Protein backbone atom coordinates (compact mmCIF):
# COMPACT_ATOMS: atom_id res chain seq x y z
CA UNK A 1 0.00 0.00 0.00
CA UNK A 2 1.35 3.36 -0.90
CA UNK A 3 1.52 6.07 1.76
CA UNK A 4 -0.44 9.13 0.64
CA UNK A 5 1.14 12.50 1.34
CA UNK A 6 -1.15 15.05 2.99
CA UNK A 7 -2.46 17.77 0.75
CA UNK A 8 -0.18 20.76 0.41
CA UNK A 9 -2.85 23.18 1.69
CA UNK A 10 -3.47 21.07 4.82
CA UNK A 11 0.23 20.82 5.58
CA UNK A 12 0.77 24.55 5.14
CA UNK A 13 -2.23 25.44 7.27
CA UNK A 14 -1.14 23.12 10.10
CA UNK A 15 2.44 24.42 9.90
CA UNK A 16 1.30 28.05 9.93
CA UNK A 17 -1.08 27.74 12.90
CA UNK A 18 1.33 25.69 14.97
CA UNK A 19 4.02 28.28 14.26
CA UNK A 20 1.81 31.20 15.28
CA UNK A 21 0.52 29.57 18.47
CA UNK A 22 3.87 28.34 19.68
CA UNK A 23 5.75 31.53 18.68
CA UNK A 24 4.85 33.37 21.90
CA UNK A 25 6.12 30.57 24.08
CA UNK A 26 9.14 29.99 21.84
CA UNK A 27 10.13 33.64 22.27
CA UNK A 28 9.81 33.25 26.05
CA UNK A 29 11.83 30.02 25.96
CA UNK A 30 14.55 31.59 23.82
CA UNK A 31 14.89 34.80 25.82
CA UNK A 32 14.88 33.10 29.23
CA UNK A 33 17.25 30.41 27.92
CA UNK A 34 19.68 33.06 26.67
CA UNK A 35 19.52 34.95 29.98
CA UNK A 36 20.00 31.77 32.04
CA UNK A 37 23.04 30.82 29.97
CA UNK A 38 24.65 34.10 31.03
CA UNK A 39 23.59 34.11 34.68
CA UNK A 40 26.95 35.23 36.07
CA UNK A 41 27.53 37.95 33.49
CA UNK A 42 24.03 39.36 33.99
CA UNK A 43 24.21 38.94 37.78
CA UNK A 44 20.81 37.24 37.90
CA UNK A 45 21.54 35.82 41.34
CA UNK A 46 22.10 39.29 42.75
CA UNK A 47 18.84 40.81 41.56
CA UNK A 48 15.99 40.42 44.08
CA UNK A 49 12.37 40.35 43.02
CA UNK A 50 9.97 42.48 45.03
CA UNK A 51 6.89 42.32 42.83
CA UNK A 52 3.90 41.28 44.93
CA UNK A 53 2.28 39.27 42.12
CA UNK A 54 5.39 37.18 41.47
CA UNK A 55 6.10 36.75 45.20
CA UNK A 56 2.55 35.51 45.71
CA UNK A 57 3.20 32.77 43.12
CA UNK A 58 5.79 31.43 45.57
CA UNK A 59 3.56 31.85 48.61
CA UNK A 60 5.63 34.85 49.70
CA UNK A 61 4.46 38.28 50.72
CA UNK A 62 5.55 41.79 49.86
CA UNK A 63 6.20 44.63 52.28
CA UNK A 64 2.75 46.11 51.67
CA UNK A 65 1.19 43.29 53.73
CA UNK A 66 2.87 44.44 56.97
CA UNK A 67 0.67 46.02 59.65
CA UNK A 68 2.51 48.31 62.05
CA UNK A 69 1.58 50.09 65.25
CA UNK A 70 3.38 52.41 67.63
CA UNK A 71 4.66 50.94 70.92
CA UNK A 72 6.76 52.43 73.74
CA UNK A 73 7.00 55.82 72.06
CA UNK A 74 9.21 55.36 69.04
CA UNK A 75 9.29 51.57 68.63
CA UNK A 76 7.02 49.64 66.29
CA UNK A 77 4.95 46.52 66.70
CA UNK A 78 4.41 44.86 63.35
CA UNK A 79 2.40 41.91 62.15
CA UNK A 80 3.00 39.75 59.10
CA UNK A 81 1.40 36.39 58.39
CA UNK A 82 1.03 34.93 61.89
CA UNK A 83 4.21 36.53 63.25
CA UNK A 84 4.70 39.62 65.41
CA UNK A 85 7.81 41.77 65.21
CA UNK A 86 9.19 44.32 67.64
CA UNK A 87 11.04 47.08 65.80
CA UNK A 88 11.70 44.70 62.92
CA UNK A 89 12.85 41.76 65.06
CA UNK A 90 10.76 38.58 65.44
CA UNK A 91 8.86 38.66 68.75
CA UNK A 92 6.33 35.81 68.84
CA UNK A 93 3.82 33.94 66.76
CA UNK A 94 0.32 35.32 66.87
CA UNK A 95 -2.50 36.99 65.01
CA UNK A 96 -2.82 40.70 64.25
CA UNK A 97 -2.80 42.86 67.40
CA UNK A 98 -6.19 43.97 68.69
CA UNK A 99 -4.96 45.83 71.74
CA UNK A 100 -1.93 47.12 73.58
CA UNK A 101 -1.45 48.09 77.20
CA UNK A 102 1.78 49.70 78.32
CA UNK A 103 2.77 49.71 81.96
CA UNK A 104 5.97 50.37 83.86
CA UNK A 105 7.39 46.85 84.22
CA UNK A 106 6.12 45.31 81.02
CA UNK A 107 3.62 45.79 78.23
CA UNK A 108 0.85 43.50 77.08
CA UNK A 109 -0.08 42.92 73.46
CA UNK A 110 -3.46 41.33 72.82
CA UNK A 111 -4.23 39.30 69.73
CA UNK A 112 -7.51 37.46 69.18
CA UNK A 113 -6.09 34.24 70.63
CA UNK A 114 -3.30 35.25 73.02
CA UNK A 115 -1.78 37.77 75.37
CA UNK A 116 1.88 38.47 74.69
CA UNK A 117 4.02 40.10 77.36
CA UNK A 118 7.11 42.15 76.45
CA UNK A 119 9.61 44.23 78.35
CA UNK A 120 9.98 47.95 77.66
CA UNK A 121 13.03 47.00 75.58
CA UNK A 122 10.96 44.65 73.43
CA UNK A 123 12.18 41.38 74.95
CA UNK A 124 9.63 38.58 74.90
CA UNK A 125 8.43 37.61 78.38
CA UNK A 126 5.58 35.19 77.95
CA UNK A 127 2.71 34.17 75.72
CA UNK A 128 -0.63 33.25 77.28
CA UNK A 129 -2.95 31.39 74.98
CA UNK A 130 -6.71 31.82 75.37
CA UNK A 131 -6.83 28.11 76.23
CA UNK A 132 -5.30 29.12 79.55
CA UNK A 133 -7.63 32.08 79.99
CA UNK A 134 -11.28 32.24 81.05
CA UNK A 135 -12.47 33.35 77.60
CA UNK A 136 -12.10 32.23 73.99
CA UNK A 137 -11.75 35.41 71.92
CA UNK A 138 -10.01 38.64 72.85
CA UNK A 139 -11.56 41.70 71.28
CA UNK A 140 -9.86 44.78 72.74
CA UNK A 141 -7.84 46.10 75.62
CA UNK A 142 -9.76 48.82 77.41
CA UNK A 143 -9.40 50.85 80.58
CA UNK A 144 -11.80 51.35 83.44
CA UNK A 145 -12.81 54.87 84.56
CA UNK A 146 -10.10 54.46 87.26
CA UNK A 147 -7.51 53.85 84.56
CA UNK A 148 -7.05 50.11 85.22
CA UNK A 149 -6.54 47.80 82.25
CA UNK A 150 -9.44 45.59 81.15
CA UNK A 151 -9.80 42.83 78.60
CA UNK A 152 -12.90 42.99 76.43
CA UNK A 153 -13.69 39.45 75.31
CA UNK A 154 -16.45 37.27 73.95
CA UNK A 155 -17.20 36.34 77.56
CA UNK A 156 -17.52 39.88 78.90
CA UNK A 157 -14.91 42.13 80.48
CA UNK A 158 -12.09 40.85 82.67
CA UNK A 159 -9.78 42.70 85.01
CA UNK A 160 -6.23 41.37 85.44
CA UNK A 161 -4.27 41.68 88.67
CA UNK A 162 -1.07 43.74 88.72
CA UNK A 163 1.04 40.85 87.33
CA UNK A 164 -1.61 39.70 84.85
CA UNK A 165 -1.73 36.28 86.49
CA UNK A 166 -5.33 36.10 87.66
CA UNK A 167 -8.36 37.60 85.92
CA UNK A 168 -11.69 38.46 87.47
CA UNK A 169 -14.96 39.44 85.78
CA UNK A 170 -15.62 43.16 85.54
CA UNK A 171 -18.90 44.95 85.11
CA UNK A 172 -18.86 48.65 84.61
CA UNK A 173 -17.91 51.34 82.17
CA UNK A 174 -14.78 51.20 80.06
CA UNK A 175 -13.11 52.95 77.15
CA UNK A 176 -11.17 51.10 74.48
CA UNK A 177 -7.43 51.81 74.29
CA UNK A 178 -6.79 52.35 70.57
CA UNK A 179 -3.81 51.09 68.61
CA UNK A 180 -1.91 53.81 66.82
CA UNK A 181 -0.82 52.86 63.28
CA UNK A 182 2.81 53.55 62.50
CA UNK A 183 4.77 53.91 59.29
CA UNK A 184 7.85 51.74 59.05
CA UNK A 185 10.79 52.76 56.94
CA UNK A 186 12.22 50.67 54.10
CA UNK A 187 14.99 49.26 56.31
CA UNK A 188 12.44 48.09 58.87
CA UNK A 189 10.26 46.57 56.18
CA UNK A 190 13.20 44.71 54.68
CA UNK A 191 14.27 43.51 58.11
CA UNK A 192 10.79 42.04 58.71
CA UNK A 193 10.62 40.45 55.27
CA UNK A 194 14.08 38.93 55.68
CA UNK A 195 13.22 37.56 59.11
CA UNK A 196 9.97 36.15 57.76
CA UNK A 197 10.98 34.67 54.42
CA UNK A 198 14.73 34.92 54.09
CA UNK A 199 16.31 37.02 51.40
CA UNK A 200 13.45 36.46 49.00
CA UNK A 201 13.59 35.52 45.36
CA UNK A 202 16.37 35.99 42.85
CA UNK A 203 15.71 36.87 39.22
CA UNK A 204 17.56 33.64 38.30
CA UNK A 205 14.93 31.56 40.14
CA UNK A 206 12.06 33.38 38.45
CA UNK A 207 13.58 33.09 34.97
CA UNK A 208 14.29 29.41 35.47
CA UNK A 209 10.67 28.81 36.48
CA UNK A 210 9.41 30.95 33.60
CA UNK A 211 11.62 28.91 31.25
CA UNK A 212 10.15 25.62 32.45
CA UNK A 213 6.64 27.02 32.90
CA UNK A 214 6.64 26.17 36.62
CA UNK A 215 6.02 29.82 37.48
CA UNK A 216 2.40 29.24 36.49
CA UNK A 217 2.09 25.88 38.16
CA UNK A 218 0.63 22.83 36.50
CA UNK A 219 -0.90 24.86 33.65
CA UNK A 220 2.38 26.61 32.80
CA UNK A 221 4.29 23.33 32.74
CA UNK A 222 1.70 21.78 30.44
CA UNK A 223 1.86 24.76 28.05
CA UNK A 224 5.65 24.43 27.90
CA UNK A 225 5.29 20.68 27.25
CA UNK A 226 2.84 21.43 24.44
CA UNK A 227 5.25 24.03 23.07
CA UNK A 228 7.98 21.38 22.96
CA UNK A 229 5.60 19.01 21.16
CA UNK A 230 4.63 21.83 18.78
CA UNK A 231 8.30 22.32 17.88
CA UNK A 232 8.56 18.62 16.98
CA UNK A 233 5.39 18.87 14.91
CA UNK A 234 6.68 22.02 13.19
CA UNK A 235 9.88 20.22 12.26
CA UNK A 236 7.86 17.20 11.02
CA UNK A 237 5.38 19.27 9.02
CA UNK A 238 8.23 21.35 7.57
CA UNK A 239 10.16 18.23 6.47
CA UNK A 240 6.93 16.65 5.14
CA UNK A 241 6.22 19.75 3.06
CA UNK A 242 9.77 19.75 1.71
CA UNK A 243 9.68 16.00 0.86
CA UNK A 244 6.30 16.39 -0.83
CA UNK A 245 7.76 19.12 -3.02
CA UNK A 246 10.81 16.96 -3.87
CA UNK A 247 8.65 13.92 -4.77
CA UNK A 248 6.41 16.04 -6.98
CA UNK A 249 9.42 17.61 -8.66
CA UNK A 250 10.77 14.11 -9.59
CA UNK A 251 7.48 13.23 -11.25
Amino acid at each position, binding site marked *: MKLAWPRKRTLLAAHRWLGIISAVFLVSLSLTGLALNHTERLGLNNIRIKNGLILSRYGMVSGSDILSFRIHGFDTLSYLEGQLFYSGQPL*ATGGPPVGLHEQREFSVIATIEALI*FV*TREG*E*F*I*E*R*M*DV*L*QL*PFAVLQFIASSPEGEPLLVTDAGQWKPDA*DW*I*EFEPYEGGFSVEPLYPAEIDEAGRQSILEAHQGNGLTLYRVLLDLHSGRLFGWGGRTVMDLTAVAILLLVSSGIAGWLRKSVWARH
Partner: protein
Amino acid sequence: MRRRPSIRFFIGLCLAAGGLNPLAAAEQVYLEPEAFIAGAFEGEPEQKVLWLNRELKTSLEDILGHPYKGLRIRYWRKGERTAWILEEIGKVELITTGFVVENGVMQSMEVLIYRESHGWEVRFPFFTNQFKGRVLKDGKLDKKIDGISGATLSVNALTRLSRMALFLHGEAVQ
Protein backbone atom coordinates in the same frame (compact mmCIF):
# COMPACT_ATOMS: atom_id res chain seq x y z
CA MET B 1 -32.41 1.33 35.83
CA ARG B 2 -29.54 1.66 38.32
CA ARG B 3 -28.12 5.13 38.71
CA ARG B 4 -24.38 5.57 38.46
CA PRO B 5 -22.75 7.28 41.45
CA SER B 6 -22.41 10.98 40.73
CA ILE B 7 -19.22 13.03 40.88
CA ARG B 8 -20.63 14.76 43.99
CA PHE B 9 -20.75 11.42 45.75
CA PHE B 10 -17.06 10.81 45.00
CA ILE B 11 -16.07 14.32 46.13
CA GLY B 12 -18.01 13.78 49.36
CA LEU B 13 -16.32 10.42 49.87
CA CYS B 14 -12.85 11.95 49.36
CA LEU B 15 -13.62 14.79 51.78
CA ALA B 16 -14.90 12.34 54.38
CA ALA B 17 -11.79 10.20 53.97
CA GLY B 18 -9.64 13.33 54.39
CA GLY B 19 -11.49 14.18 57.58
CA LEU B 20 -10.99 10.72 59.00
CA ASN B 21 -7.32 10.55 58.11
CA PRO B 22 -5.27 11.20 61.26
CA LEU B 23 -2.45 12.60 59.12
CA ALA B 24 -4.75 15.35 57.88
CA ALA B 25 -5.37 16.64 61.43
CA ALA B 26 -3.65 19.98 62.05
CA GLU B 27 -4.18 20.61 65.77
CA GLN B 28 -5.57 18.08 68.18
CA VAL B 29 -6.66 19.33 71.59
CA TYR B 30 -6.73 16.19 73.74
CA LEU B 31 -7.28 18.03 76.99
CA GLU B 32 -7.94 21.70 77.62
CA PRO B 33 -5.16 23.18 79.79
CA GLU B 34 -7.80 24.48 82.20
CA ALA B 35 -9.21 20.95 82.62
CA PHE B 36 -5.71 19.58 83.17
CA ILE B 37 -5.03 22.06 85.97
CA ALA B 38 -8.44 21.42 87.53
CA GLY B 39 -7.68 17.68 87.60
CA ALA B 40 -4.15 18.09 88.91
CA PHE B 41 -5.09 19.44 92.34
CA GLU B 42 -7.60 18.77 95.05
CA GLY B 43 -9.09 22.19 95.56
CA GLU B 44 -8.04 25.48 94.06
CA PRO B 45 -4.30 25.89 93.37
CA GLU B 46 -2.54 29.21 93.45
CA GLN B 47 -1.40 30.55 90.10
CA LYS B 48 2.16 31.88 90.15
CA VAL B 49 4.94 32.93 87.83
CA LEU B 50 8.60 32.04 87.93
CA TRP B 51 10.81 34.82 86.59
CA LEU B 52 13.85 33.54 84.76
CA ASN B 53 17.16 35.19 85.55
CA ARG B 54 20.25 34.67 83.44
CA GLU B 55 21.34 31.64 85.48
CA LEU B 56 17.97 29.91 85.08
CA LYS B 57 17.89 30.67 81.38
CA THR B 58 21.32 29.09 80.99
CA SER B 59 20.14 25.97 82.83
CA LEU B 60 17.05 25.77 80.62
CA GLU B 61 19.22 26.13 77.54
CA ASP B 62 21.30 23.17 78.75
CA ILE B 63 18.16 21.09 79.20
CA LEU B 64 16.41 22.06 75.96
CA GLY B 65 19.48 22.28 73.76
CA HIS B 66 18.44 25.72 72.57
CA PRO B 67 17.76 29.07 74.24
CA TYR B 68 14.42 29.36 76.02
CA LYS B 69 12.45 32.27 74.63
CA GLY B 70 10.72 34.05 77.45
CA LEU B 71 11.40 35.67 80.78
CA ARG B 72 8.74 34.12 82.96
CA ILE B 73 6.88 30.83 83.22
CA ARG B 74 3.40 30.44 84.66
CA TYR B 75 2.68 27.56 87.02
CA TRP B 76 0.14 26.42 89.56
CA ARG B 77 0.99 25.42 93.12
CA LYS B 78 -0.66 23.97 96.16
CA GLY B 79 1.66 22.99 98.98
CA GLU B 80 4.58 21.02 97.54
CA ARG B 81 2.67 20.11 94.41
CA THR B 82 3.15 22.13 91.23
CA ALA B 83 1.69 21.90 87.74
CA TRP B 84 3.33 23.17 84.58
CA ILE B 85 2.10 23.63 81.04
CA LEU B 86 5.12 23.67 78.78
CA GLU B 87 5.68 23.72 75.05
CA GLU B 88 8.43 22.41 72.84
CA ILE B 89 8.79 21.84 69.11
CA GLY B 90 8.69 18.20 68.03
CA LYS B 91 9.69 18.50 64.41
CA VAL B 92 8.14 21.75 63.23
CA GLU B 93 5.17 22.36 65.52
CA LEU B 94 4.78 22.98 69.25
CA ILE B 95 3.61 20.19 71.51
CA THR B 96 1.74 21.50 74.56
CA THR B 97 2.21 19.24 77.55
CA GLY B 98 1.06 19.31 81.16
CA PHE B 99 3.23 18.06 84.06
CA VAL B 100 2.41 17.56 87.72
CA VAL B 101 5.36 17.36 90.13
CA GLU B 102 5.30 16.81 93.87
CA ASN B 103 8.34 16.83 96.14
CA GLY B 104 10.61 16.60 93.13
CA VAL B 105 8.89 13.48 91.78
CA MET B 106 6.92 13.48 88.53
CA GLN B 107 3.32 12.56 89.30
CA SER B 108 1.84 12.70 85.83
CA MET B 109 2.43 13.91 82.32
CA GLU B 110 -0.19 14.49 79.64
CA VAL B 111 -0.04 15.69 76.06
CA LEU B 112 -2.64 18.44 75.90
CA ILE B 113 -2.33 19.78 72.35
CA TYR B 114 -0.55 18.01 69.50
CA ARG B 115 0.04 19.84 66.24
CA GLU B 116 2.48 17.63 64.30
CA SER B 117 1.21 15.29 61.57
CA HIS B 118 3.25 12.33 62.90
CA GLY B 119 4.12 11.03 66.32
CA TRP B 120 0.77 11.56 68.05
CA GLU B 121 1.23 8.14 69.71
CA VAL B 122 3.14 9.96 72.47
CA ARG B 123 -0.19 10.90 74.02
CA PHE B 124 -1.06 7.31 74.91
CA PRO B 125 -0.64 6.11 78.53
CA PHE B 126 1.79 3.32 77.53
CA PHE B 127 4.23 6.16 76.80
CA THR B 128 3.24 8.87 79.28
CA ASN B 129 3.14 6.42 82.22
CA GLN B 130 6.89 5.99 81.88
CA PHE B 131 7.36 9.49 83.32
CA LYS B 132 5.49 8.71 86.54
CA GLY B 133 7.85 8.53 89.50
CA ARG B 134 10.82 9.97 87.57
CA VAL B 135 13.20 12.33 89.36
CA LEU B 136 16.11 14.43 88.20
CA LYS B 137 19.54 12.93 88.78
CA ASP B 138 22.50 15.06 87.71
CA GLY B 139 20.19 17.01 85.45
CA LYS B 140 18.85 13.89 83.73
CA LEU B 141 15.91 11.56 84.31
CA ASP B 142 16.76 8.69 86.67
CA LYS B 143 15.44 6.10 84.20
CA LYS B 144 15.62 5.83 80.43
CA ILE B 145 12.41 6.52 78.55
CA ASP B 146 11.58 3.97 75.84
CA GLY B 147 10.98 5.57 72.46
CA ILE B 148 8.30 4.98 69.86
CA SER B 149 9.17 4.11 66.26
CA GLY B 150 8.22 6.98 63.98
CA ALA B 151 7.81 9.41 66.87
CA THR B 152 11.44 9.90 67.88
CA LEU B 153 11.41 13.70 67.68
CA SER B 154 8.22 13.98 69.73
CA VAL B 155 9.60 11.51 72.31
CA ASN B 156 12.81 13.55 72.59
CA ALA B 157 10.84 16.80 72.92
CA LEU B 158 8.68 15.39 75.72
CA THR B 159 11.68 13.93 77.51
CA ARG B 160 13.35 17.37 77.44
CA LEU B 161 10.15 18.99 78.72
CA SER B 162 9.88 16.50 81.59
CA ARG B 163 13.42 17.38 82.68
CA MET B 164 12.49 21.04 82.39
CA ALA B 165 9.37 20.57 84.54
CA LEU B 166 11.33 18.76 87.26
CA PHE B 167 14.03 21.43 87.19
CA LEU B 168 11.50 24.28 87.35
CA HIS B 169 9.67 22.59 90.22
CA GLY B 170 12.93 22.53 92.17
CA GLU B 171 13.42 26.23 91.54
CA ALA B 172 9.82 27.13 92.34
CA VAL B 173 9.58 25.34 95.68
CA GLN B 174 13.02 26.15 97.07
